[in-house]
């Protein structure tokens, strides 16, 4: 009975892991990178240096918005934090149009001047791709990602049942033993960070739970907007009165709000009807200031600065959701914990990747004719190459494109993203036309070479190369270069291993044949 349960779970694990495994690999890899999305953005905007003070930045942003969009319906200001140095502003134009992307938003320095940085989506793209994908409607992408995450969750649970010796094999990682080594790698990466994998998969589903299961809200509220208003205190904007009245200084309001939250930093400010007597300022706590992702808010009258009361989402369910989203995104994490998150994410990426490879390694020995595998086997093999080596190359090329594309290129941010997918596609196609073993060696080496090229190209195209960064104590740039070198080393080492393995296999059959000849 027990064995048959384990067998059925193993079967389930094999297929639930495989079916959307390639998508899961991409989600894990880009999601892991997203733990450093602010840092990646800073690297991709080498023009921005130094740090910024939130209060000065808020005042600067108001100055900028007063000249650019004085009659806007609302302003949204994302303040700099310890990790970023710029203020992002976005406004809804007064004529009610949505406005084209790029025309209703700006990146500012702390004095409120728009910074002319190279146009890039930075680390934010990797973060968004991780659940919105690209080149497809966001809604579809989120459903697809949700299904993948659900498969992941079932794969983890069935994997626990399948794994015969979680405790006995806890420390077992044997190298150079073919299938056994792949199984060890898959097991160890899964078991060592099992709490992380369970947490990240479950909380990932929770982040979009109200989209996947809208019925709770639909049954209890007249519309999603009413739900938002009642639970999160997001009131619809009042009509403009037409009586002009300048906005009060935001700095004292920020201090009041921050004091109310026990000193926690302000993250966002939105102003509705700016410049009007009905103006309303909503200050939201920084998501990095506590584990719970949904920050407390404090509202003020924009014309007088009078406090209009705060709003803390109450109720156990909302609090639980908020903490789960916070746990998933890790915005609260300081440096040490952020690295732990990142390393656990790398472990998860390796777990998914090794699981995909294991599927082929396990079946290769059982193929009726290993020289001519059947279609399904070839498909999985090729998709593995495309997913693993292809995505890695794509991300490296994304960084390279950031440095190499001309700064004034039209729609530059989109071209950077296109180059990621072009590289990914190219590697995928390369993997299709080459013999599988050789394709692995070549594409892994290519990924390694692309990562290795990043620090070189960075040094050649900016004044913030490795040596210069060390001299100026710019540890973010130093760490980025080191990470690229580490990734390059890993991929080149992997390429070398595959080549070695192939050479060994190629020389094995003749030897066996020779031995047979001798014994006869």
């Amino acid at each position, binding site marked *: 009975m027990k064995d048959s349960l384990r067998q059925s779970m193993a079967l389930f694990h094999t297929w639930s892991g495989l079916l959307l495994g390639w998508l899961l690999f991409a989600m894990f890899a880009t999601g892991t990178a997203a733990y450093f999305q602010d840092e990646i953005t800073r690297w991709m905007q080498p023009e921005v240096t130094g740090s910024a003070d939130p209060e000065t930045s808020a005042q600067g942003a108001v100055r900028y918005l007063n000249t650019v969009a004085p009659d806007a319906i609302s302003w949204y200001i994302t303040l700099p934090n310890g990790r970023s140095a710029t203020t992002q502003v976005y406004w809804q134009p007064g004529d009610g149009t949505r406005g084209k992307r790029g025309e209703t938003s700006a990146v500012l320095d702390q004095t409120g001047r728009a910074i002319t940085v190279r146009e890039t989506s930075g680390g934010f793209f990797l973060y968004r791709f991780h659940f919105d994908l690209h080149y497809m409607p966001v809604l579809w992408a989120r459903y697809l990602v949700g299904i993948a995450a659900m498969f992941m969750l079932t794969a983890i649970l069935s994997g626990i049942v399948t794994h015969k010796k979680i405790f006995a094999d*806890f*420390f077992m990682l044997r*190298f*150079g033993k073919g299938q056994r080594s792949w199984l060890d790698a898959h097991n160890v990466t899964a078991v*060592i*960070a099992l709490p992380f994998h369970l947490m990240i998969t479950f909380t990932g589903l929770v982040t979009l739970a109200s989209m996947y299961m809208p019925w709770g809200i639909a049954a209890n509220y007249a519309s999603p907007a009413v739900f938002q208003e009642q639970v999160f205190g997001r009131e619809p904007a009042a009509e403009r009165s037409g009586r002009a009245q300048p906005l009060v200084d935001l700095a004292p309001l920020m201090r009041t709000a921050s004091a109310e939250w026990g000193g926690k930093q302000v993250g966002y400010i939105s102003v509705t009807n700016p410049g009007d007597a009905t103006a309303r300022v909503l200050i939201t706590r920084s998501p990095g200031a506590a584990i719970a992702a949904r920050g407390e808010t404090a509202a003020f009258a924009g014309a007088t600065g009078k406090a209009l009361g705060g709003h803390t989402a109450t109720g156990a369910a909302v609090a639980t959701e908020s903490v789960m989203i916070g746990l998933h995104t890790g915005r609260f994490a300081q440096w040490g914990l952020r690295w732990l998150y990142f*390393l656990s994410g790398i*472990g998860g990426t390796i777990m998914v990747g090794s699981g995909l490879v294991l599927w082929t390694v396990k079946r290769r020995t059982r193929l009726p004719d290993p020289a001519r595998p059947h279609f399904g086997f070839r498909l999985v093999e090729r998709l593995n190459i495309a997913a693993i080596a292809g995505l890695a190359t794509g991300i490296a090329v994304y960084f390279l494109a950031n440095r190499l594309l001309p700064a004034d290129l039209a729609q530059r941010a989109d071209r950077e993203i296109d180059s990621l997918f072009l590289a990914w596609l190219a590697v995928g196609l390369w993997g299709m036309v080459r013999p599988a073993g050789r394709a692995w060696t070549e594409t892994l080496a290519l990924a390694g070479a692309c990562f290795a090229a990043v620090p070189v190209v960075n040094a050649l195209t900016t004044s913030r190369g490795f040596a210069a960064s060390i001299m100026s104590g710019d540890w973010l740039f130093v760490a980025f270069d080191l990470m690229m070198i580490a990734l390059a080393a890993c991929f080149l080492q992997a390429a070398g291993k595959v080549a070695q393995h192939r050479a060994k296999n190629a020389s094995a059959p003749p030897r066996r044949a020779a031995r047979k000849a001798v014994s006869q």
Partner: protein
Amino acid sequence: MIHALAIALACAAFLMLAASMKRHQRDLVGRAVPEPRARLARIAGWVFIAVCWSLEAVVLGPALGTIVWIGELSMGAWLAIAFINWRSGRPTR
């Protein structure tokens, strides 16, 4: 720096647990460990893990401390596995 200390503690905990297991004893200690000693190692391992949690809970509070502790346990376990692998002399045995 608290992370370095806690990860070292977690690594020591996992090495203790490994030393309590027959299949790793030769690599870690060089010989088989008698059962009473092995039990002691097992207890010490779990105590170290508990101490590691208490340390983080005191410094960072129980909520944040627990999150950090889980990450540190993972890293400690990785280091322990790397150490065992190094001791066992790869690639095959």
